[in-house]
């Protein structure tokens, strides 16, 4: 009797092992911004699809693109789409789809102004160019007549490490200020022109600088700012409306440009529309249109279709990312459908 139970148990264990090894592992690498979303989403996916596990390495966008080009991963993820030179190196047709959205708040530490600071594109560019150097500058006081801005100097905080967050923010500055575009430009790390500027590592580094330095201002990812209830400025958008950085406002900015493309010229900063928040950007996933192993390709396609569909997008929303607008979901899904598997 006991023997039979043991044998049954052993069979059960072997069976479990057997089904464990038969699951296919799909690998991805790239953006650190995507990591909390991907970790949770892919965990849920494996729960409902035990035949697939997704292993995502958050090594940074540039590293993700590099690994993707070397074909050491099934998909890459990046806050900035692959550029022409990188696509040429990949030497095969690549599909790039948006998978999630992020916004950036301008957080600040001005004694006596706990919230409600208003900033125009001109004021933001002036501050980051180093032209507006004190909080009681006429440009700022005229925008904020109801609060008392102190006579202290402005300390500009930025990310010290190369990051997609900096790319989106400098993209915004370049789109609202011709001077920024010609003097500084857009990039994952740039040469910051304001004399009183300091760099912090990661969102937490910039947030730390802002908290500890009276007079500081800096850009922080929306998700981090919401989780840590950071003070956020209300910005004037392209149509002249004052908008706070919220998930719906970022989503409105994205929805205003329904035709999404991975070209360098495409960006949703400074988007049109009364409700649109002006500093926002997509995060992208890239796959080869013709995967070397068609069976594997089918699984990758299914995972990514699931990732941009409603269930995964609501996971993203719960983690304070901005879920993709329906029209963007549809167009991303169409691009994915062109994968040849």
């Amino acid at each position: 009797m006991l023997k039979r139970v043991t044998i049954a148990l052993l069979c059960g264990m072997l069976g479990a092992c057997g089904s464990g090894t038969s699951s296919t592992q799909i690998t991805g690498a790239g953006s650190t911004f995507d990591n909390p979303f991907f970790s949770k989403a892919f965990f849920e996916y494996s729960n409902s699809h035990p035949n697939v596990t997704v292993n995502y390495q958050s090594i940074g966008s540039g590293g993700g693109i590099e690994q993707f080009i070397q074909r050491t991963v099934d998909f890459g993820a990046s806050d900035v789409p692959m550029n022409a030179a990188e696509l040429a190196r990949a030497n095969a047709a690549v599909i790039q789809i948006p998978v999630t959205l992020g916004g950036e708040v301008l957080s600040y530490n001005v004694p006596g102004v706990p919230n409600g600071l208003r900033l125009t594109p001109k004021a933001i560019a002036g501050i980051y160019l180093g032209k507006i150097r004190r909080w009681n500058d006429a440009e700022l006081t005229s925008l904020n007549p109801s609060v008392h801005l102190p006579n202290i100097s402005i300390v500009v905080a930025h990310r010290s490490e190369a990051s997609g967050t900096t790319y989106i923010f400098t993209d915004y500055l370049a789109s609202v200020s011709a001077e920024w575009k010609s003097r500084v430009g857009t990039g994952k790390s740039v040469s910051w022109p304001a004399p009183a500027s300091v760099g912090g590592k990661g969102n937490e580094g910039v947030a730390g600088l802002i908290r500890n330095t009276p007079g500081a201002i800096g850009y922080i990812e929306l998700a981090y700012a919401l989780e840590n209830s950071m003070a956020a400025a209300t910005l004037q958008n392209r149509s002249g409306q004052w908008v706070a950085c919220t998930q719906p406002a970022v989503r409105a900015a994205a929805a205003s440009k329904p035709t999404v493309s991975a070209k360098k010229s495409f960006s949703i900063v400074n988007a049109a529309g009364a409700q649109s928040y002006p500093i926002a950007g997509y995060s992208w996933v890239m796959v080869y249109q013709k995967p070397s192993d068609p069976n594997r390709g089918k699984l990758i396609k299914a995972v990514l279709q699931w990732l941009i569909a409603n269930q995964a997008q609501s996971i993203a929303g719960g983690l304070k990312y901005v879920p993709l607008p329906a029209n963007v979901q549809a167009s991303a899904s169409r691009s994915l459908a062109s994968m040849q598997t």
Partner: protein
Amino acid sequence: MSVRRLRAQTSSRVIDRVFIAVLLAAAIVFLAIIGGLAYSLVAGSSLSLRTFGAAFLWTSQWNPVTNQFGALPLIYGTIVSSLIAILLSGLFGVFAAVFLADFAPRPIARPLSFMIELLAAVPSVVFGLWGLFVLAPAMRNAIDPFLQKTLGFLPIFSGPSYGVGLLTAGVILALMIIPTVTALSRDVIATIPIDQREASMSLGATRWETMTKVVLPAARAGIFGAIILALGRALGETIATTMVIGNRPEISASLFAPSYTLASVIANEFTEATTDIYRNSLIELGLLLFIVSVMVNGAARLLIWSVFRRSVSAR
């Protein structure tokens, strides 16, 4: 001589030979590592070496957007932050070592030594976070204003303070390397024979005179060695520095101003360096860090050697 003894002798000779060969191999491995490192750094930075030439050393622009790279502010930041660290940790570390070796009562010396060694095991990212959230505000609110008030006539203590900056980075580095300086110096001081101390005291010297005229001169070489070892850690430290130095590639007279170091730039930008010239320039920074470390080490050794020779000839 019996056959057996002869055989034993030859076998022991063989063992010796094998032993020496193993030792030699171990030493050659180090040479190979250093050589390989230097080679790959030069090979990896060939494009930027060709493009910028020697101007890389004295130009100050670091602009990834326009692909203009110059390392001067980074070299400056690396050397100055390490110098501040060495001055502070050399002073306090040696004082602490003297206290622990010769003055502290045993029940205090043991736990205190243990705690100092514990400090060496704290990861640098913890130092960095502590520096950002505790030290930086303290520097901005208390220490920097105090220095400005008392020594503000010196350009190095003037100008606005943001909390993060060159001085804060130097202080964090000092805290990180003080265990090395203290623990090694204490061991060196403890090896000076007790007879020498007794002889000095019996001649009527005070404890201060015994320490400064007998013990410390004898332990000098070892203490310098400890400081050089610590300096190596300060020069190459990355995470803790980048969190508190402000990350601004600019040379400023004031120590309160933000600065940047070679190691921090590499850590911050390498993962996203997508153009060839950018990646090459970052590897060239690695090469410079390598050269700066070798030169600083060499200079320190030269200093010890000259001090040592003078003290010997004075006797």
